[in-house]
């Protein structure tokens, strides 16, 4: 990695952050697309991120903008019950066809835990995002129980759980300003926000993961 054209080099006594900066600059330079709108140095990247954040604020976007949304990102849109929802592609770990084969959850489990499917030879608990959103008093009135509605499972959180979906719609590429990000005090902290144009809620799988742990949804 030694080169005289390199923008930074390590000085004696440099710490780990200096090392990361040098490696980061090295990688950014090597991976710069010819003629593309790239942001090679850390300073340029930070400026770029600040511009995005500024744009987001001016569009009434709250402070809960995840770091990865500072660049264009993709989500998979799907339907759950009567809702249109989405999961960031970066959070997807796999896809399972349920084939109607469910292992039911244990007695006393939350009603949004639909059951368990087999994924890569392991049992993966599946949650129903529709029931998570639906107020409790309406869940009992749902025409179709989740297990008969859900046809596929998007496995996420490195395989720790899956999100039940009725049908997969399409992959959408979005930018930060396409989404109304949730506020810090939102009751539904497991939603990143809503895609403005499509009224489609983006699930926050990290927060869902915490919810799953808190509710002891394990097999």
């Amino acid at each position, binding site marked *: 990695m030694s*080169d005289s054209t390199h923008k930074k080099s390590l000085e004696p006594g440099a710490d780990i952050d200096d090392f990361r900066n040098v490696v980061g600059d090295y*990688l950014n330079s*090597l991976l*710069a697309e010819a003629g593309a709108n790239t942001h090679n140095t850390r300073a340029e990247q930070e400026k770029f991120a600040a511009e995005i954040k500024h744009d987001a604020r001016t569009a009434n976007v709250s402070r809960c903008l995840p770091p990865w949304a500072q*660049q264009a990102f993709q989500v*998979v849109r799907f339907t759950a019950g009567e809702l249109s929802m989405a999961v960031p592609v970066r959070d997807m770990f796999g896809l399972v066809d349920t084939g109607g084969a469910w292992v039911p959850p244990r007695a006393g489990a939350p009603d949004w835990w639909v059951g368990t499917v087999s994924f890569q030879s392991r049992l993966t608990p599946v949650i129903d995002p529709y029931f998570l959103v639906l107020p409790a008093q309406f869940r009992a009135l749902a025409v179709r129980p989740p297990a008969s509605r859900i046809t596929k499972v998007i496995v996420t959180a*490195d*395989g720790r759980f899956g999100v039940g979906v009725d049908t997969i719609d399409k992959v959408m590429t979005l930018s930060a300003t396409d989404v109304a990000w949730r506020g810090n005090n939102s009751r539904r902290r497991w939603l990143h926000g809503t895609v403005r144009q499509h009224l489609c809620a983006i699930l926050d799988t990290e927060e869902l993961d915490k919810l799953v742990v808190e509710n002891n949804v394990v097999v």
Partner: protein
Amino acid sequence: MAIIAVSNQKGGVGKTTTTVNLAGFLAKQGRRTLAVDLDAHGSLTAYFGYDVETIEKNVYRLFTGATQTKDLISSTQIPLLDILASSSALVTLDKHLGAQPGKGLVLRDALTALKQRYDYIIVDCPPVLGILMVNALAACDRLVVPVQTEVMALRGLDRMMHTLQMVKQSLRREVNTLIVPTMYDRRTRAGVEALQQLRSRYGALVWDGVIPEDTYLREASKNHLPVAYMAEKSKGALAYALLVEHIRNIEAIQERVSA
């Protein structure tokens, strides 16, 4: 066409064996496959009977320009399996090219030109972070990280995953990653414990199977053949067959999602 990089910053973990046998199985299944040797030591190149000191058609020329990628490819004794060989001159690349803008994308652009010729390209990476490893990570659709099932190798894996994280930030995209436990000996406590640690630390990023210690893998290497062509029923061959099947299953899922 799918490009799979086989990489780990620790040496001796089974990168070349994994490259040879992934490529060998894919070719045996009728897939047009190219193996690319980015390691100046040239183990992969030697595996298929070429000498890194003398072979004229080699990957170094991609970086010096003026030659079309297809003209640098050599055939192997395995039907449907070709090789883009290494050169000992690769050791000079970092010194000559350093961090020149865009030089991390040379391989990606070169391999894209082979889209119609191959179904799979498997890239064997050098065990150091430098221009060649960055090129491989930038070019690949999928990263396979072989990890020897012993405790010291796990530390090397932490370093590799950190490097990968930094490269992903610079690329601004995800790299699908699969950690493959290799050289597993279930008779040793150290091996069993290392595998447990690997699974508990990296969870579902780790392939469910293992590549076992198998003398047939060494024998196949001595005979310059992928194990599937020498001892198809051996433990090593069966394990690599399962790994190929797993990778193709994941690809099928991703194709369905993006369709």
